[in-house]
């Protein structure tokens, strides 16, 4: 794999194809170490009211801005309007135009409200944001989001935090055939092989949080995910053997002793 296999997102080049969240870790030390081991260069953060008690540790202490690009999300927003308001604050705070646009449509499943997401994306792209929308695995929606100027599309593999893996590889494949912007699998990855599968399908990157932070040993899982994403990408580029119902000998069939 040559150096040119960088992951290009919104004109910038990244070596890593793993984007990680920063939620659900035990403490900031664990967060910092997990990020480091994951090899990620882009990390998601949420925006919330500051706690009005002096001396609170800040997530930003755990994230070296030289090393990681911040990707603020709009998690918890249920309308385009809420998401846009959150985006404005995030831009002010993060000095970044990067935005993981997330408009939730259902509290129990955290499935996106694709309609509101599209409405918000239209506005935010015009306002200069680099919009990365979290969406269902809907090829038609993906194309519309590309058309309005999103920098990537981020279909879910399975519900957020569910760990179910790639529920519908067919739809991901069709999305990959449909859009030219990067396709980032967001949500649902449960273990290393899930991440590898996403890359093997041709997806350009994977975004995950619970799969790492919720593991029994998050630091080791961060490494596992880093390695799995690399493995999956290499396997995609290397061109796997076709599947066959029958066998094909790996040892020579001639020259046997008699």
């Amino acid at each position: 794999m040559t150096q040119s296999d960088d992951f290009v997102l919104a004109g910038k080049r990244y070596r890593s194809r793993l984007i990680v969240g920063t939620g659900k870790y035990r403490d900031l030390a664990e967060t910092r170490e997990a990020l480091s081991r994951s090899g990620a260069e882009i990390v998601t953060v949420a925006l919330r009211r500051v706690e009005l008690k002096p001396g609170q540790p800040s997530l930003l202490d755990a994230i070296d801005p030289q090393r990681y690009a911040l990707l603020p999300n709009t998690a918890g927003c249920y309308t385009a309007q809420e998401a846009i308001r959150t985006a404005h604050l995030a831009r002010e705070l993060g000095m970044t135009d990067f935005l993981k646009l997330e408009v939730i449509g259902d509290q129990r499943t955290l499935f996106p409200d694709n309609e509101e997401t599209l409405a918000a994306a239209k506005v935010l792209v015009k306002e200069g944001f680099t919009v990365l929308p979290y969406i269902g695995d809907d090829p038609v929606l993906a194309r519309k989001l590309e058309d309005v100027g999103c920098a990537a599309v981020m279909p879910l593999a399975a519900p957020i935090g569910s760990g179910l893996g790639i529920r519908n590889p067919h739809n991901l494949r069709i999305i990959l055939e449909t859009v030219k912007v990067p396709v980032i699998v967001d949500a649902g990855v449960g273990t290393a092989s899930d991440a590898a599968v996403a890359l093997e399908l041709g997806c350009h990157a994977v975004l995950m949080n619970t799969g790492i932070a919720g593991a029994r040993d998050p630091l080791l899982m961060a490494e596992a995910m880093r390695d799995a994403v690399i493995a999956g990408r290499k396997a995609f580029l290397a061109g796997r053997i076709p599947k066959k119902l029958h066998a094909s000998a790996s040892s020579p069939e001639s020259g046997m002793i008699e």
Partner: protein
Amino acid sequence: MSTSMSMTKVKVNGAIHEVEAGCTVARLVELLEVSSARVAVERNGEVVPRRRWAEVALDEGDALEVVTFVGGG
């Protein structure tokens, strides 16, 4: 933030606070004892850019959101 004749009531992150009349956003952030570099402020639904904190004075009844980044996915 003691109460006096010349106080202004504002809502900060959903709770009522009283500040002296003429209090700016910059002063408010100072009073809240939060790390000013790590918060953003919204006033009545509009972001107040950091460079304008010193000049924007709060009005009675203003709704302010003071936010920061936290862990999220």
